[in-house]
């Protein structure tokens, strides 16, 4: 279980985390969703005992993080935003070292390293220097490192940023697996899709504060799901396009300020085909038409009425 109560961390003028309250029940996945500079990393670092909050309280697996950092470190695992891999060591040596530092003993550390190498599909690369690993392999090795101590609570800071779709899928499966076997997971992400896939509960953070929280279903309902985005060649066709699309979808499409783009809220893939036919029949020339899934930007637009800020970071 993870509990945060009114956590605050400031860096000079910047309120990196500004009163964070969280409750993550044992064996569930919690997603912190936010743009650059929202305070995700700072939150994770405070909860994982790496930096002391200015005020507030954090409890991980029943242990007060500020008072007993050493005890917390025995039961948690952390994969930070940047893969903390020693380039000079091989994959196996990296994991073996972490096992020893968990005081597993030499033999057990070796066995555990072997297990994790297999689980993360790194057996073939196990005895190569990590320097030569691809981004995805480093990420997997880093995550494996976080699991060496069989943590009850796992912190993952943007675990799939920079991964290709296959590696991302693999990692999602591992996280799902861990949660199914009782591990509590707090992950941060900039992708709504990822939070949606994994998390039972999502908190959207911005400027160090939670601006919305709930199940993925509830958040998506707030955002309004996906949309069909149509870009027109000529502004003159806008009125016709709105009428055609409106009658197809049964809702009123939103024209964009530049007046060559129309959005229709929908999750229906078939609408795309129907729209192409109908627009063509009406003589509307289309440059681009696509079904867009809701992104973090859409969440922000829906929640705050403005685009997600790209922070200083």
């Amino acid at each position, binding site marked *: 279980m993870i509990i945060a109560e009114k956590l605050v961390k400031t860096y000079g003028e910047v309120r990196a985390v500004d009163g964070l309250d969280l409750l993550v029940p044992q064996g569930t996945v919690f997603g912190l969703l936010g743009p650059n500079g929202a305070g995700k990393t700072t939150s994770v*670092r405070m909860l*994982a*005992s*790496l*930096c*002391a909050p200015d005020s507030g309280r954090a409890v991980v697996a029943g242990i007060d993080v500020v008072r007993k950092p*050493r005890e917390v*470190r*025995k039961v*948690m*695992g*952390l994969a*930070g*935003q*940047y*893969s*903390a*891999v*020693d380039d*000079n*060591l091989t994959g196996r*040596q990296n994991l073996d*070292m*972490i096992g*020893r*530092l*968990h*005081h597993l003993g030499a033999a057990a550390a070796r066995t555990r390293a072997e297990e994790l190498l297999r689980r993360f599909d790194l057996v073939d690369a196990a005895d190569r*220097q990590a320097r030569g690993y691809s981004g995805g392999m480093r990420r997997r090795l*880093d995550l494996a*490192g*976080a699991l060496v*101590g069989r943590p009850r609570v796992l912190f993952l800071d943007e675990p799939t940023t920079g991964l290709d779709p296959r590696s991302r899928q693999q990692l999602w499966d591992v996280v799902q697996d861990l949660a199914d076997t009782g591990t509590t997971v707090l992950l941060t992400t900039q992708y709504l899709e990822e939070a949606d896939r994994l998390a039972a509960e999502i908190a959207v953070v911005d400027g160090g504060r939670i601006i919305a929280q709930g199940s993925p279903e509830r958040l998506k309902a707030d955002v309004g799901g996906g949309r069909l985005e149509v870009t027109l060649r000529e502004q003159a066709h806008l009125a016709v396009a709105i009428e055609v699309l409106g009658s197809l979808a049964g809702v009123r499409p939103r024209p964009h300020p530049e007046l060559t783009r129309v959005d229709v809220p929908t999750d229906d893939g078939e609408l795309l085909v129907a729209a192409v036919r109908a627009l063509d029949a009406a003589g509307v020339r289309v440059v681009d038409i696509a079904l867009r899934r809701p992104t973090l930007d859409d969440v922000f637009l829906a929640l705050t009425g403005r685009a997600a800020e790209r922070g200083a970071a």
Partner: protein
Amino acid sequence: MSVAHALRWGVSDTHTMVRRYVIGLTKTPEVLFFTTVQPVLFVLLFAGVFGGSIDAPGGNYAEYLMPGVFVQTAAFAIAVTGSAVALDVRRGVVDRFRSLPMAPTAVLAGRAVADLLLTTVSLAVLSGFGLLVGWQPHAGFPQVIAAYLVLLAFAFAVTWLGVYVGLVVRAPEVASQASLFTVIPLVFLSNLYVPIDTLPGWVRPLAAWNPVSALVSTVRDLFGNSDRHIAESFPGRYPELVALISIGLLLAVFVPLSVAKFHRADR
């Protein structure tokens, strides 16, 4: 947790960390190469450029120069330490270690011990080279051992300055320069290359009170290589005392500072 228990894990964790750094050093042989070749180059250049013109005490410049270059080698090893520590902070490796239930000071102590091993190798190679160019100890075996122990104690102490600079600077690209900055003035404003009485007037008091001068004098005395002490200054009369106090002070200041900084390490 009992003290004995903590100590046991502290030692075991430090051992694990030393292994990590030593593997790192073997995988980057260029570090070993340059830290060893650089002082050799200094000896060649200085002996070549100044050898004839300097009125070296004892008449043999190689004998005068070598103890100084030993000290310089120990001091310049700080560049390796500083950049390695900064790189660990930058790469998030420090965050990884701090998330483990290990003895936190083991990360820094391991670094200090590993760099001490590196300096030991450099000093051994450099000593061999010194013998080739005409340097040799004239003292008994115990004094020669004592000379090397003083050098290694200094190397260990100065490593902690490098650790601290690495933790504070955090940018690996500048950390090695920044750590060198802290020792270069001390190395050059001293009796390391030339006797203090041949330095410009304004430098002489600085050089006389510079702990590096005291250290170099101590090492020269222990090796039995001639030195010209500046008898009217306190450090000139008691170089051993000043050298040991300096080493102690370095440790007393930068070990706790580094450990405290490590606990608050931030990318």
